[in-house]
C-alpha cells in the first residue's frame, strides 16, 4: 500500500514538474491561450499568432520575476 502511494506521489510530482515546472503562471497563461485559440478557430478567426505571442511575453515576465526573486547569481 505504501509502495502504491509513493508511486502515485512520484508520478504526480513528475507530471507537475514536466507540465508546470518552476513557474505556474507560464503554464496557466499557455493553457488559456490554447483555449482562446481553440474558441477563435471555431469562429473562423485566424489566431495562430496568439500562442507564440503569449509564450514570448510570459517568458519575459517569468525571467523578470525570477531575477527579482533570486538575483543575478542564481541562474
Amino acid at each position, binding site marked *: 500500500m505504501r509502495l502504491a502511494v509513493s508511486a502515485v506521489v512520484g508520478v504526480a510530482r513528475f507530471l507537475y514538474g514536466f507540465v508546470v515546472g518552476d*513557474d505556474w503562471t507560464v503554464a496557466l497563461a499557455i493553457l488559456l491561450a490554447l483555449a482562446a485559440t481553440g474558441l477563435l478557430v471555431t469562429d473562423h478567426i485566424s489566431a495562430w499568432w496568439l500562442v507564440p505571442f503569449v509564450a514570448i511575453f510570459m517568458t519575459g515576465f517569468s525571467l523578470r520575476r525570477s531575477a527579482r526573486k533570486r538575483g543575478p547569481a542564481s541562474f
Partner: protein
Amino acid sequence: MTGAGVVLLTTFLASSVEAIEMVIIVLGVGAARGWRSALIGAAAGFAVLAVTIAVLNVALAAIPIGPLRVIVGALLLLFGLQWYRKGIARVAARGLAGMGEEAVEEEDIPASGMDWVAFVLSFKGVLLEGLEIALIVVSFGLAAGQLGLSVVGAAAAVVVIGAAGFALKGFVTRIPRSLLQLIVGTLLTSFGTFWSLEGLGVSWPQSDLDIVLLLVVYSLAAASYITLERRRIHETALEAA
C-alpha cells in the same frame, strides 16, 4: 518517372519531413539529458507504434490525429518553454560555457537509472511523428493503390534521416550545455506550438515550413531577452560595486 516511382518518391519526401522532426527531438533530448533514456524512449515509441500499426492496419486512417496533436503539442510546448527560459537565463549569465556536473545535479537529471523526462520527450516525439508517417503511408498508398511501395518509401525516409541524425550525434554533444538547453528549448517550443495549434484547427499557410518561421521568431525573441538580461546583470553588478 513511372507511377510506382512517383509513389515511392512522394511518400519518401513526405515521410522525411516528419522523420526530421522526430530525429531532431531525440537528438536534442539525448544530447541535453543523456542518450540512454532518450534512445530507450524512442525505442518504446517505435514499439508502441509497431503494435498500433499491426493491430489497426489500414484502419489507422480513423485515428483522430487532431486531439493527439493538441495533447502532445501542448505538453512539448509547456516543457519546451521551461528549457527556453532557463537557456536564456543561463546563456545571459554564463555565456556559452559548459555547465558540467554541477548543472546535472541542478537540473535533477539522475546520475544513474532512467531519466523519465528524456524518456517521455523522445517517446512522444517518435509516437506522434511515427503515426503521422503511418497516416501518410495509408492515405497515399491506398489512394494510389500502391500500399507496399508507400511503406518502402516511408521506411527508407526513417532509415536515411535516422542515419543522418546518428552521424550528427558527435557534433551535437560538443555544443556547450547552456546553449544546447536554449537550442532544444527553442526547438521543443516551436514544434509544440505548431502541433498544438494544428491540432486545434489552425491552418498554417506554408504547412510544415511554418515551423521554420516559428523557430526564427522564438530565436529572435531569445536573442533580445539575452541582451536585456545581460544589461540587467551588468547594471546590478555596477550598483553592487
